[in-house]
């Protein structure tokens, strides 16, 4: 289904023993890993690699800044589940990758980054465009490699892909000196990878799974807390079966949105700092919290001491270091959440005749409590006649996408409103910089996602701040003809920082006013596509429809109410049950 055009290309296989250059071997390894497209920017030491690429079928997308090469690769990976690949030259090329690598690390996205390095004889001599990429990216990656000889190149490349994609996914960097690209040798395909110290726990402990199932049936007020692990493990079907079998309401974190369809009756919403009242009250009041592929992030839990205080906790995660990191679970299960849910669903069904009906009455009360919370305080959806409310914009995008479009975002107010109000009826539709919160993520990740899914409607929702970090990529979008719909939620501020300054810093607005924004129509025209600015609610629907109908990229700059704040809000460090719903000045805690 992904990238039909790309997959129809012939997959070239090189025979054993063929004399080839390092650059050609690298390309052959990429082909064997199923790579059909990658994002990069050439430079001095990668010229030998780009020379080999010149007559190779793998599609290379020339971005306009290396940081965006990782973000685009992330968009590709997040939209497909495949490993995203990017490439940069030594020195500044490699250092420009760092933000993207950390982003992929925080959100557990499988990326392989190839960097060129100066000639191995020059390493350590402060040569032109030399940087200690191996050292700089050590803590920015799941693992990194420096290739020292041609002989070890194929092995390392396959190890990199394996490490990136398996276990808890993450970015892996391979640093390759120029002379390794140039060296020639006989190619031998690699059939096995042996990493004795690399531990991947997938199956989950059978006894623990059985105990978990018992606890679930015994619970009167269960709550499923599903994270990005559901998406990474492709466990959506299993999650759906699980919430239905266990008759449990579910929240999906910012990274987990779409893991359970937003339209599913058991889905409540996103929890946490800007989560819904029902989600946060449900998390606070539940007697059993079932955490699936999630890491008890501070933006979700708020004050840990009061988080789900009365609940027993089942925690399933593939990373043993996440289990018990922030909250000690009653039942820890280390494993692939897909495999664990498959087994858990079986045991639940097995035990249903014995336990299933015992808690029917308390469960019914729990569900009606949740409905009451939902009704009591749904998300705000204000409308105005004279100005476009940001929530109005998100509602319209939601209506027009019908829970089916890919939506990428930057970080900030627009991200929170999009996460609150846009439905995602499938996994891999909502693509955002969750853990790192990197501005300038929306546009390049939308490029990668559109590249991977030419069949999909892709919105890049940006703030006016983040968008201005991404402007160089308008050239890439134009040259690749990617029909991405860029929607700038323009409030003239760095909105989230402005919101905090308003609420916690006596409204002293310091360095948050973005008082110059390019004319969207002219800017888009400068790159050869359509753009428009709107500022009236009456224009909104038509303008969005026009953008969707336009057969190419579109830049829609939407002027929204500048002072609107995102609510509910849990002040940093507070309990998630203590939400603020409007412009009442809360107590500053952090």
């Amino acid at each position, binding site marked *: 289904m992904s990238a039909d055009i790309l997959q129809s290309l012939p997959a070239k296989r090189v025979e054993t023993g063929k004399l080839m250059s390092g650059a050609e071997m690298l390309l052959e390894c990429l082909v064997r890993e199923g790579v059909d497209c990658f994002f990069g920017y050439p430079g001095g030491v990668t010229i030998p690699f780009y020379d080999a690429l010149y007559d190779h079928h793998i599609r290379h997308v020339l971005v306009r800044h290396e940081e965006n090469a990782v973000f685009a690769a992330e968009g590709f990976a997040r939209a497909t*589940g495949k490993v995203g690949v990017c490439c940069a030259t030594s020195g500044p090329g490699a250092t420009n990758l760092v933000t993207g690598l950390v982003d992929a690390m925080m959100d557990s996205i499988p990326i392989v980054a190839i960097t060129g390095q100066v000639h191995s004889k020059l390493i350590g001599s402060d040569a032109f465009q030399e940087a200690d990429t191996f*050292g700089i990216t050590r*803590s920015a990656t799941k693992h990194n490699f420096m290739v020292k000889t041609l002989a070890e190149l194929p092995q390392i490349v396959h190890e990199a892909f394996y490490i990136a994609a398996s276990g808890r996914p993450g970015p892996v960097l391979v640093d390759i000196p120029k002379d390794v690209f140039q060296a020639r040798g006989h190619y031998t395909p690699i059939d*096995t*990878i042996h990493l004795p*110290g690399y*531990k991947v726990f997938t199956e989950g402990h059978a006894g623990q799974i059985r105990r978990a199932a018992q606890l679930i049936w015994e619970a009167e007020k269960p709550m499923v807390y599903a994270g990005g692990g559901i998406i990474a493990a492709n466990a959506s079907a299993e999650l759906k079966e699980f919430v239905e079998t266990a008759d449990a309401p579910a929240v999906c974190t910012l990274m987990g949105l779409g893991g359970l369809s937003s339209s599913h009756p058991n889905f409540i919403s996103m929890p946490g700092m800007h989560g819904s009242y029902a989600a946060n009250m449900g998390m606070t009041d539940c007697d059993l919290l079932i955490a699936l592929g999630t890491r008890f992030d501070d933006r979700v839990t708020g004050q840990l001491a009061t988080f789900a205080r009365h609940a027993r906790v089942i925690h399933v995660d593939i990373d043993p270091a996440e289990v018990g990191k922030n909250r000690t679970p009653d039942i820890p299960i280390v494993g692939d959440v897909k495999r664990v849910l498959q087994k858990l669903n079986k045991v639940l069904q097995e035990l249903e005749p014995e336990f299933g009906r015992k808690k029917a009455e308390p469960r019914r009360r729990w569900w009606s409590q949740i409905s009451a919370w939902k009704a009591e305080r749904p998300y705000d959806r204000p409308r105005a006649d004279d100005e476009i409310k940001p929530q109005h914009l998100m509602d319209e995008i939601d209506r027009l996408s019908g829970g089916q479009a890919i939506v990428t975002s930057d970080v900030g107010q627009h991200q929170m409103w999009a996460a609150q109000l846009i439905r995602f009826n499938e996994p891999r539709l909502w693509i955002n910089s969750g853990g790192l919160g990197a501005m300038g993520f929306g546009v390049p990740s939308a490029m990668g996602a559109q590249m991977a899914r030419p069949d999909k409607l892709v919105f890049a929702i940006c703030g006016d701040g983040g968008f201005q970090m991404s402007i160089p990529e308008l050239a890439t979008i134009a040259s690749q003809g990617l029909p991405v719909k860029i929607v700038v939620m323009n409030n003239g501020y760095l909105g989230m920082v402005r919101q905090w300054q308003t609420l916690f810093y006596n409204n002293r607005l310091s360095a948050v006013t973005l008082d110059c924004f390019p004319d969207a129509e002219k800017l888009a025209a400068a790159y050869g596509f359509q753009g428009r600015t709107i500022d009236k609610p009456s224009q909104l629907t038509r303008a969005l429809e026009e953008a969707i109908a336009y057969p190419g990229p579109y830049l829609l700059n939407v002027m929204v109410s500048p002072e609107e704040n995102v609510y509910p809000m849990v002040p940093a460090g507070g309990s998630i049950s203590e939400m603020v719903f409007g412009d009442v000045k809360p107590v500053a805690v952090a």
Partner: protein
Amino acid sequence: MLQTISILLENKPGALLRVTGVLAARGYNIETLTVAKTIDPELSRMTIGVDVEERLRSQVIKQMNKLVNVLQATDLTDAPAVIREMILLRVRCEQPTRTAVLKEAEIFHARVVDSSTEGFALEATGEPEKLDEFVDIMRSYGDIEVTRSGGVAMSLETKKIRLQPPVPAAVPQTTF
């Protein structure tokens, strides 16, 4: 109190830095560190002495175990284990105290590795606390200079190491 962490890791460039990076990234100061090849030259055994907050200790061990190059990281602080350290110590001593210094050295099973008119160079091994006492005593005889190896530790339990078996290479994911 100092914790003792024993780590079996691949003998590869950068592996040491990855392990110490887990501690450095969290602001912990490494008090002692020793590392050397094992009987399998592809592996190294590392012993680290570090003061990590009680509640974060298991997290640190888990983070080390996550490293691709680490085969096993174990907390030996409260486990049955022996820890030994080596010390090289130079003590300046005048004629009248020389015999006394040698007597004390004998109590600590220290060997004389150099002797001159100015004093002795001594070599001793033992538990780190024992060596602390040795240092204190020698200091009472005159100026000293000390080089310590840092502790090397060995668990007295046989723990099975779970190693990842080989897997086929280049199996493109078909998740989508």
